[in-house]
Every structure is written in C-alpha cells, then in structure tokens.
C-alpha cells in the first residue's frame, strides 16, 4: 500500500480487510492524518453494514461543514458538482446525473449520508456514484491513484457535516 498524500490514502473502508489497523501501511497513514484516525478506522470496520448506514464517525474530530462545503463545491476535489446540483450559487455549471442536494440534510440521516459517501454501492450496487472511502472492488486503477481513496476520513466527515446542514431551500 502506498502512503501518498495528494489524493488521500485511506483505508479499505467498511468492507475492507479487518487487519487494516495493524498493517505497517497504517502507520504511515496515522502519521499523515494525525491522531484520531487510527481509532476511527477501527470504529469504521466495526460499524454494522445495514440500511441504517454508518452511525459512527470515521474520525474523533467532528466534521467541519465549512471545509465540507469547500470540498463539495470544488469540481477538482470533491467532484460532487460534476453530477449534483444544489444550493451552490458559487458553482456556475453543476451537472444533473445525481439528485439535487438541496435539502438533502432534511431527507437523509447522518449515518445514511456517511454510508452514501463512503461506498454508495452498499445501498445500490448499480449506482453511478463513485465510492469515496474504500478501495474495494476497483479495477484498473491508474498508477497515481493506486491504493488511495478519493477522500480522506476527515474529509468525508467534513462533507457529511456540510450535507447534514443542507436542510432548507436554496439560500
């Protein structure tokens, strides 16, 4: 496993190898992301995989909705607005392949939002939404993305916190 930091070197996610916490790779990850991440991934792999989603946060630091908004609205980082419209007046051209995120925080509970971002295939195997926090079941991943998840654990929490805050109509 690599420990590159440019696009996030996350663990294998909820359905990944249970030994992830013990591997030497994880040490590098721990150093990169700081404390809390180690405990977080152990929580993650222990989380039940059911329709209720992932109730336990991936990190001990609560998600920051302001950082989450920056990730969601950056088409080169979160990529979210490539497919989702939403209450993002700063994004001139959002795509329409996924549902509009306006009010998503009122429609979906936090564990569901977290599950959807970590690996939306859990709820819908045919989903077009990329898995943001697992390396499971991926084929032919390009060299510079090998072993890396699309977001880091804390970034997932930030995005979840931001989406959970979207409870109203367009601002």
């Amino acid at each position, binding site marked *: 496993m690599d420990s590159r930091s440019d*696009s996030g070197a996350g663990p294998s996610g909820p359905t990944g190898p249970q030994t992830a916490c013990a591997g030497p790779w994880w040490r590098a990850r721990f150093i990169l992301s700081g404390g809390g991440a180690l405990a977080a991934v152990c929580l993650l792999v222990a989380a039940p995989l059911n329709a209720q989603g992932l109730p336990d946060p991936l990190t001990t630091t609560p998600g920051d909705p302001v950082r989450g908004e920056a990730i969601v609205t950056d*088409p080169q980082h979160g*990529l979210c*607005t*490539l*497919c989702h419209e939403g209450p993002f007046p700063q994004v*001139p*051209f*959002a*795509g*329409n*392949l996924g549902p509009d995120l306006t009010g998503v925080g009122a429609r979906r509970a936090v564990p569901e939002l977290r599950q959807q971002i970590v690996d939306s*295939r859990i709820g819908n195997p045919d989903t*077009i939404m*990329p*898995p943001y926090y697992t390396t499971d*079941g*991926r*084929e*032919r*991943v*390009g*060299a510079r*993305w090998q072993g*890396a998840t*699309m977001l880091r654990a804390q970034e997932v929490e930030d995005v979840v916190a931001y989406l959970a805050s979207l409870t109203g109509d367009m601002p």
Partner: protein
Amino acid sequence: MRRAIVFTVAFLLPGLAWSDDRRTGYDDMNADLQALQDDPMNPATFWVLDGERLWSEPAGTTAQSCADCHGSAEDSMQGVAARYPSFDESSGTAVDLLGRIALCQSRHQQTAQPRDRSDPDRLALLAYVTHQSRGLPIMPDEDPRLAPARARGEALFSSRMGQLNLSCAQCHDDNAGGYLAAARIPQAHPTGYPQYRLEWETIGSLDRRLAGCMTGVRADPFAPGSPELVALELFLKSRAAGLTVEALPIRP
C-alpha cells in the same frame, strides 16, 4: 432514405439492435461548434491535405507510395473507413484503420521504424482515407472472426474501471443526454474520428479519445492500438451502424 439504409444494415446485421433516436457528437454540439465543423476554414482540412500529398509520396525502402498499389484513393478507399475495424489474415487479429495503415507501411513500404500511432503523417493518411467515406453509413465488417473481439468490446463497455469505478455504459448509455457539469454526455457513437479536438488543438484518433475517457475515471488506460481498444471500437461501430461517417469532425 436514411431509414432505408438503417433497415438495410439491420437486415445485414441481425442481433445488433439500436433505437432510432441515436444522436451523434455533432448533434450534441452547440451551433457555434457545428458552424466551425461546417466551415470551409475547418482546421482539420490541413490533415486531409497532408494525407492527400502523402498518398502519392514514395516511402520506405521499397520507395512505394500508397497510390502505387491502391491507385486513386477517391475510388479505392471509398467506404473503407465505414467498415473498419477489420480482420487481418496474417496476424489473425482485429485491426483498426490506423493499425491497417501501419501494417501496410511496414509490409509494403518497409518503413524504417515502426512509428508511433500519434505520428502526424500516419494521422494525416488516416484522415485522408477516412475522408473518402464522408457521408457514407457506417457498415461494420460482418466477418465472423471479428465476433469474439466485438463481444469483448461489449463486455469492456460495461466494465467499471478506475478510482471513480465507472463503466462507459453508466455515462454513455444510462446517462447520455445528461450533463456532467456543463458538458452534455454523448451517446458514444464514433461517427467522427479522427477528429480535430479543440482540447488537443490537433487531430487525434478514437483510441486517443478512449484513453482520455479512461484517464478521466482515473483508470490505467489501455495502450494505443491494443486489442482492448480495437475491441471497444468494434463494439462502438456496431452500435453506430447506419449513422453517417462525418467528414472533418470538430469536437470540443
């Protein structure tokens, strides 16, 4: 008339079904880009002109030109691009038109080095030969020996790949017509290759585009001219059967 052609092709190629609301990349372009493609001052013209010159130019150790064997391209190459990829007897594999030009150069002209597929002269010949099929319907080669590769292309089209874990079909079948950011997703009918792509600011082949698509989903792209990309082209051409080969295509 076009419907008649479509029915003819449907008869010739049973089992390759499509709905008749197929759209091309040209159909999905805005009026300004369509106007650039239709303009006599279309920059792709340069590659067709270069190809026309190269067609009659002796090359390689045999000092033979394409014209020495094939005569006038306007006669001998008419409709050829519309049926490619085809089956190469001696290698026993499917080859795309660019691969066929390369084989011709090495077998008959004995050109010194096997040149890169992005070699400008080879792309110019590809453009010139393809130009001889402008306006003709795509008529996939029915050679049964191509069937396994075509089936492989179909499987690849539906295979999820890359960090984004997306298949071609998820965008270009399931979500064609939708918008990925500001860009309308086309139906993946390869009517316009080689094409002058504004992104590239030059002409390029279908396998360059497919590799670009794969990199877009953060996958390790298949090599230019690889059996996988030829297989994908075979499948895509079968879906596009009956659609018109575009001359001097422009794409954003």
